């Protein structure tokens, strides 16, 4: 789990949506899978596929130390009326400034209040939070489940 990798993911997805790319691939790791699954559940992307650097897999392939370097996650990006669904995607915590939120702060954030330097949640915006047991959940879900954790990134 590295915030630098997450920053790369944010930038990559923004670059792709800026030039209207239909599918893109990101490295295959647990954190990427968790974040991307969150995006899929919130409806920001249309598909997630396992694959290699050459494209999505046609047959299921086992991930081993020999092929991990070439394993990728292929994402289907969404556009509506010629505009990308993901307009903004940025980190909240940086490697140099990690933002750990308590459960009350998470609840405040979920109910639309600003927390410390984090600006209030806008309509159609999501914040992802990593809980103590390495789970990445959306802020509303975290508030509902009374969780606390590290604020990772916000997507709009």
């Amino acid at each position, binding site marked *: 789990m590295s915030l630098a990798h997450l920053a790369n993911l944010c930038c990559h997805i923004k670059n792709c949506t800026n030039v209207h790319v239909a599918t893109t691939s990101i490295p*295959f*790791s*647990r954190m990427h*899978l*968790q974040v991307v*699954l969150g995006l*899929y*559940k919130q409806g920001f992307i249309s598909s*997630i596929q396992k694959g290699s650097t050459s494209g999505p897999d046609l047959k299921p392939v*086992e*991930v*081993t*130390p*020999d092929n*991990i370097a070439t394993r990728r996650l292929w994402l289907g990006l969404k556009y509506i009326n010629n505009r990308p669904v993901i307009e903004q995607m940025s980190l909240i915590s940086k490697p140099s400034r990690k933002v750990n939120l308590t459960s009350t702060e998470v609840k405040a954030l979920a109910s639309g209040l600003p927390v410390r330097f984090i600006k209030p949640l806008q309509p159609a915006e999501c914040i992802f939070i990593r809980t103590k047991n390495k789970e990445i959940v959306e802020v509303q*879900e975290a508030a*509902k*489940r*009374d969780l606390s954790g590290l604020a990772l990134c916000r997507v709009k």
Partner: protein
Amino acid sequence: MSKRSLKLGRKSGVLPRVRPVFKRYPIRHKTAEEKAEESKIEQGFAEGIPLPQKKGFTFHRQPIEKPVLTVEERIKRNIDERRPQNIDESKLSQDEIWQLKRDDIRREHLREAYLKEAERLHKIEELKRKQQEREKKASSVVKQHTEESGSLTLPTIDSYLKGPIMRQRTPEEQQLVEEQRVLNRRAQELEIQERKMNELLQLYHAAANFITTEEELEQAIKEAFEVNVSKFESKQMVIENKLSGYFNAFSNMNTNESIVTDEMFGEINGQPGLNKIKSTLDGDVEKLRREAQLSINQRSA
């Protein structure tokens, strides 16, 4: 700091555990939950093992429940009933009166302690009960949430996240990889050694023309400037041409040809190459030559 305090965690001393005020018997009846929980407790020996014979003692599978002695009963038994009755203070001495008073004070303190302790225990129980309720509520919310999220549509990704992302190598695969690594390293080392040997051989061949004595130097100078002047001049011209950027195809032809023949026959500047020397040293060439000669002789005979 002395070493003596190390075993006490760098503290000068540790106070003994606080003695419970209500020893032996509980002060309240067990709740239904506690009863349900304690009904699971079993003690003694496993099934089929004969019990040891012990006089005046019976084994119980379940622990025997202790009788309840409430705080009121305790106060009544230990304080109120023990208070001396019908005392005529006029007959007592000052000391005895004082003793009675002291006992009275002690009794009052004990009563106070009983009541306070009962209150404290009640408070702790209340807090525990609240915490349990909260945990129960939170766990039910989590359960409800997981049911609601309908992860039925996303079984595969969730299953990825549950287990390890990558399958580790099996011991056999690991062994194969390690052997391949050893092989690669040795191949690389061999390549380096061969290159070094080739360079050494090249140097050896070149050393034949090295000028090492004064006579040879004089001979070479004489040859270059007096006997074979044209060769020197032609070489000079080639160098000048090269410097001025004029490409002379003929001047390169000889060198190209020699490079090709060297590569073809495995030679170094027309001299025997590494492989040839190796086979000669092994005696392979000699053996082959003898066999060929033998077969030729046999045919002719």
